[in-house]
């Protein structure tokens, strides 16, 4: 025969419908969101990984000055690769962005059509879907570049541009100011062929077995290429951020999302635990009678655990249904908001099921079982006598009678509900951390932009295009290149100050490898105010120092990008510059260290535009817009999410406070009723009970701030280390603390009003119940 106690469950559910509904909604939202995220993440990651084969993504690409000859091609292909032309040219559009235009691809790096159709004739263009989103372009619109016009026929995802990095060295992609597109061959031929970039993709005839072999094969290929052609760039697939960044990033949020789910489930489990303790106290007589009648402890544990577990299970089922349907699209939308991913098919995700259904139920089972087992350890007689203290009776904390009775009353309420308040404190820390993150990012980004603006090395940094061949391969070519380069890049601009630059990278670690720009500065530079003349050390940018926690006197070791050569420098000082990870040293020292020749230089600092240098030698111009690319992209890809994070944080905060203060009022219902009978008004009773919680909430909010700041320091640093090259320092606008506090108080005020209504509705008859 089934236990007749189960008949109580629907009645208990009905009588506490508010509590269970609130918890259920929070569970559905959390589980649904995390499930949606994991399903979207898993499905899209699968589509992304399968895309390498499906869309025949290249194993690497290189760019040369001139189209390679048939014999050069044959010689290169003898190295176990097949080459494919992937020429492109860039047009500056009238909307201020740069469009990289390809011919539609047929052999490698195939294109996924997302909307509309592919271009079929001249004057038509299919553009990257995300670039279109970010710039508000619809199918049918016209893009203009001077007198040239293209009709947008469709949106596409180029498989070798899942992340829109214009240059592989860029610290962040830019899907606002940079886009990719395809046109028909006849349209491509009609474009300005002087701008043509001879980019070739290669595919290994025999795919490398692992990353180590892939590195070796690419290094060998680079050497072989150096013998045949003058390389302008060389990017094997594993180093190509436009291809790999997305895959690396997609996995990285998984742990954070799972942690978010588990923390919320644990908080809810403890809220249930406290509720159960309260129920056991209320039902002590019933429990005593049942135990005395022969019900086992196990049966009662099962009975009291049933509802929390059922609610979790229902939450998990509904959450997962939403996760696989509506919320999956929301989460996929977040990825589509950052990356140019192809279409995907939703796939069953066993991990998601385990993490969002099995684990939450297990957490609920374990936490509640532990609490119930502890609470029900007493003998039936103790329950019948309502003596649930277990050990010796607690003595009252001494409070001075000089303290007013209201103050003492409130302190007693706080002492009585300490376990509730500890859970509340943890809940507040957790909710506030989310809120902190949501409020923080926009202000960090805007501060970063301001900081960069006020600490630019110069208004313009012209990086002259030093051919890759000057750094590797044929020595003669290298010398000639440098000679030509040196003569062709003179300027009459009085603001211009030449500098040398050389690019190295940080040693491999668990985080992203950073490109480090080494600047060789002239003596008495008017742009870099640092004591560099002694040559006994280098200055590093403040961004570098902050990212790698470096200080004066430390040593830094950097390596060549595609080689094993390492360089070690001693840090003489920190130079305030947050725009990049850089090193400053005397120009002579830099040229000498890298064997570049005494007269070598690779760019100009200038506070005015330089107009007398041949455009072909200007590789890039670092101005404010270029330097703020990271913050702009982070703002675009994460900005929309922040509102959702804030709403979620407020939701958690409200639910935890609501449930715990509800328990406090329920626990004290009889005392509240008694005070009413004595003649206390609802206002006075609220001052006793609600104010106690108010005081605790205020203290928790204030105490949680330094804890949250410390945790955020670690989390933000970790996030920046894993997700971006370069560095954005954590800057907390003091007004964020005020906002967090006010949002906390405002949210609590809503709960307090609900609690006031609850106090008002406590009947005086409660005190007349025969309860000891």
């Amino acid at each position, binding site marked *: 025969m089934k236990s007749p106690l189960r008949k109580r469950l629907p009645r208990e559910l009905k009588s506490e419908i508010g509590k269970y509904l609130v918890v259920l909604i929070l569970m559905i939202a959390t589980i649904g969101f995390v499930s949606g995220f994991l399903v979207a993440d898993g499905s899209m990651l699968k589509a992304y990984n399968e895309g390498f084969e499906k869309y025949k993504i290249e194993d690497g690409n290189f760019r040369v000055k001139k189209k390679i000859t048939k014999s050069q091609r044959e010689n290169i292909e003898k190295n176990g690769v097949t080459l494919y032309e992937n020429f492109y040219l860039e047009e500056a559009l009238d909307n201020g962005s740069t469009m990289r235009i390809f011919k539609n691809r047929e052999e490698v790096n195939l294109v996924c059509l997302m909307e509309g159709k592919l271009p079929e004739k001249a004057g038509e263009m299919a553009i990257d879907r995300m670039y279109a989103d970010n710039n508000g372009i619809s199918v049918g619109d016209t893009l203009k570049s001077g007198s040239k016009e293209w009709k947008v026929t469709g949106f596409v995802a180029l498989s070798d541009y899942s992340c829109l990095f214009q240059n592989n060295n860029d610290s962040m992609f830019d899907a606002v100011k940079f886009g990719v597109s395809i046109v028909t061959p006849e349209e491509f031929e009609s474009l300005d062929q002087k701008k043509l970039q001879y980019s070739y993709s290669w595919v290994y005839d025999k795919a490398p077995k692992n990353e180590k072999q892939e590195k070796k094969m690419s290094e060998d290929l680079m050497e072989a290429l150096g013998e045949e052609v003058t390389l302008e760039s060389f990017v094997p697939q594993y180093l190509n951020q436009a291809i790999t960044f997305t895959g690396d990033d997609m996995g990285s949020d998984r742990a954070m999302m799972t942690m978010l789910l588990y923390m919320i489930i644990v908080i809810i489990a403890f809220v249930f635990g406290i509720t159960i303790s309260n129920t056991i106290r209320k039902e002590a007589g019933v429990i005593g009678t049942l135990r005395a009648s022969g019900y086992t402890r196990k049966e009662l544990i099962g009975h009291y655990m049933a509802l929390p577990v059922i609610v979790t299970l229902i939450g998990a089922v509904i959450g997962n249904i939403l996760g696989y349907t509506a919320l999956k699209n929301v989460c996929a939308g977040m990825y589509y908001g950052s990356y140019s991913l192809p279409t995907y098919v939703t796939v069953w995700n066993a991990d998601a099921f385990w993490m969002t259904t099995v684990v939450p139920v297990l957490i609920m089972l374990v936490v509640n079982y532990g609490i119930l087992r502890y609470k029900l350890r007493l003998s039936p007689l103790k329950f019948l006598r309502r003596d649930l*203290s277990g050990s010796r*009776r*607690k*003595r*009252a904390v*001494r*409070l001075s*009678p000089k303290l007013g*009775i*209201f103050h*003492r*009353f409130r302190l*007693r*309420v706080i*002492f*009585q509900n300490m376990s509730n308040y500890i859970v509340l404190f943890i809940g507040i820390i957790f909710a506030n951390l989310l809120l902190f993150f949501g409020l923080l990012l926009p202000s960090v980004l805007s501060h970063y932009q301001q900081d960069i603006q006020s600490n630019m090395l110069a208004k313009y940094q012209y990086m002259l295009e030093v051919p890759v061949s000057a750094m590797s391969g044929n020595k003669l070519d290298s010398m000639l290149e440098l000679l030509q380069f040196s003569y062709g890049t003179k300027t009459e601009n009085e603001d211009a100050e030449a500098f040398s630059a050389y690019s190295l990278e940080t040693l491999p670690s668990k985080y992203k490898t950073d490109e480090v720009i080494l600047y060789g500065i002239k003596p008495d530079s008017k742009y870099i105010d640092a004591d560099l003349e002694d040559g006994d050390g280098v200055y590093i940018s403040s961004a570098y120092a902050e990212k790698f926690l470096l200080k004066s006197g430390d040593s830094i070791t950097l390596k060549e990008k595609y080689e094993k050569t390492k360089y070690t420098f001693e840090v003489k000082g920190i130079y305030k510059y947050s725009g990049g990870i850089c090193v400053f040293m005397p120009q002579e020292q830099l040229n000498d260290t890298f064997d570049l020749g005494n007269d070598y230089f690779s760019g100009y600092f200038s506070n005015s535009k330089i107009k007398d240098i041949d455009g072909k030698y200007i590789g890039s111009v670092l101005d404010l817009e270029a330097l703020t690319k990271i913050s702009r992209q982070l703002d675009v890809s994460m900005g929309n999410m922040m509102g959702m994070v804030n709403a979620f944080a407020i939701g958690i905060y409200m639910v935890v406070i609501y449930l715990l203060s509800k328990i406090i009022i329920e626990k*004290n219902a*009889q*005392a509240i009723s*008694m*005070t*009413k*009978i*004595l*003649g*206390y*008004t609802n206002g006075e009773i609220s001052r006793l009970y609600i104010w106690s919680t108010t005081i605790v909430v205020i203290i928790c909010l204030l105490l949680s701030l330094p804890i949250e700041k410390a945790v955020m320091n670690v989390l933000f640093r970790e996030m920046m280390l894993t997700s971006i090259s370069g560095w954005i320092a954590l800057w907390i606008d003091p007004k964020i603390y005020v906002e967090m506090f006010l949002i906390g108080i405002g949210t609590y005020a809503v709960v307090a009003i609900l609690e006031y209504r609850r106090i008002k509705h406590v009947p*005086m*008859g409660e*005190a*007349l119940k*025969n*309860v*000891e």
Partner: protein
Amino acid sequence: MFLEIKGIKKSFGTGDSRVNVLKGLDLEIERGEFCVLLGPSGSGKSTLLNIIGGIDGADEGSITIDGEQLEDMTEKKLSLYRRKHLGYIFQMYNLIPNLTLRENIEVGAYLSDRPLDVDELMHTLGIYEHQNKLPNQLSGGQQQRTAIGRAIVKNPDILLCDEPTGALDYNTSKEILKLIETVNQKYGNTIVMVTHNDAIKDMADRVVKLRDGMIRKNYCNEHKLSASELEW
């Protein structure tokens, strides 16, 4: 007349399950009088006490205390009425569990403009040395003394006692009754006490016997005994 009850009717439930608990009661009690309401279970004595205490409302009839009519009062006014005029003592003490003995009494003192001295009262009640204990550290008698202290510290006009000795043993019950008698004599409060214990009628000024929601007997005790003389 200090307390005037006229035509009080009260019923619970609806339809077939409707029970008329009070069927039109009239009662008058003088200031300072010690009135005992006697009757079997279900006779309506606790309901009458709750109506006098303003924690339950009558369906019909009126209650006037010191010239103030209860049925005209809003909830807020009723709170003020209880605050100003009433002290309540229950069978199960109803102390606030997380407050010490002293603090429980101070909760009552807060409500009065001219409360009695808490220390002196605790001495009178014989619980001074336990003042820092929580209710669960006290015996039943000590808890009931504390409840009496809480009720009388504000020196109320009327002390309503609902089976104050119902949960206590014989000796403790007698001590509590002695205390209530002392309070009545010392502070001159009007006392209305509901009890099952027939012996208590002998220490009352007025005895009211109820059965089936009606007053069956209402008389003044000409030869009342002191609490210490009671036997049962």
